[in-house]
């Protein structure tokens, strides 16, 4: 994490990351394959959130995630879906930051990303279960986890490669 960057630079890079994340999020919603499993997605936009986390820290990552789901919610018109994504985002960013702090050099972004994807699903399903008052929703968690672990691994590797090639402020 870089603390020595000027605030303006942080702000502009953050804005760029937010724009990139929104577009990625919007594009992946167009991939029809993932319509078979409601709620499942590639999560490629999480690359951007993870970059914000290692570059600027957890608060930037959290606000990036929340702003991103808000923007995508407004763009796609599914504003109610914002709540599901929002709960998932808060939980997953929190978990990713915790594991990054706990196992600093024992874990790579691939592992962080898989855990983030898992906790995103937990948040998503918890909100869904609360909305319909039905704990049966959690039966769906293992199915989502199976898919999200694989996609989380892939996006984690992407994020890791980017963060190694491109250091902020150099």
């Amino acid at each position: 994490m870089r603390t020595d960057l000027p605030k303006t630079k942080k702000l502009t890079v953050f804005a760029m990351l937010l724009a990139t994340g929104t577009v990625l999020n919007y594009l992946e919603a167009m991939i029809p394959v993932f319509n078979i499993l409601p709620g499942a997605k590639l999560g490629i936009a999480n690359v951007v959130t993870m970059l914000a986390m290692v570059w600027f820290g957890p608060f930037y990552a959290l606000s990036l995630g929340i702003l991103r789901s808000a923007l995508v919610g407004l763009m796609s018109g599914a504003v109610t879906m914002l709540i599901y994504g929002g709960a998932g985002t808060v939980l997953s960013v929190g978990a990713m930051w915790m594991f990054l702090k706990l196992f600093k050099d024992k874990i790579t972004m691939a592992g962080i990303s898989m855990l983030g994807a898992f906790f995103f699903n937990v948040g998503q399903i918890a909100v869904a279960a609360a909305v319909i008052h039905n704990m049966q929703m959690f039966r769906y968690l293992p199915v989502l986890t199976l898919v999200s672990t694989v996609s989380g691994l892939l996006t984690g590797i992407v994020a890791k490669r980017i963060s190694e090639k491109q250091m902020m402020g150099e």
Partner: protein
Amino acid sequence: MKKPNAAQADSAQPAGDAMTRLDKLIFCVLIVSSVLSILFTNIIFAKKTADEVIVEVNGEEYGRYPLYEKNVKILDVKTEFGYNKIEILNGKVRVSDTNCPDRLEVKSGIIDSAGEMLVCLPNRVVVRISGEKDVDRVAY
């Protein structure tokens, strides 16, 4: 292209594409536990007798209908949250029409075994096949 360690000191991340042991552990634990719980829930719910279709709206029971119908039974569920058209025929259930924006429960297709369900979150409608209430009997 590989420039070792000069830049990596900053990221506090192990170098290269290699995954650490913890990464592999996380991968294995997540995959194995989800496969096991899918198998486990399927074994539990497969034993149940599926004979009723339960429709719930906003967490409250809307109605129960026999699963095995010789002629197709069409339910029009109209509530303050929205409209869902449910069809039951000979052990199979589907939602054939709705006014909710994503229509995921329509795309989910047909359900036919105990514990399976179709969910329409925007309209707060759950259509499920009976069976899960017997979990306690298995759990002891």
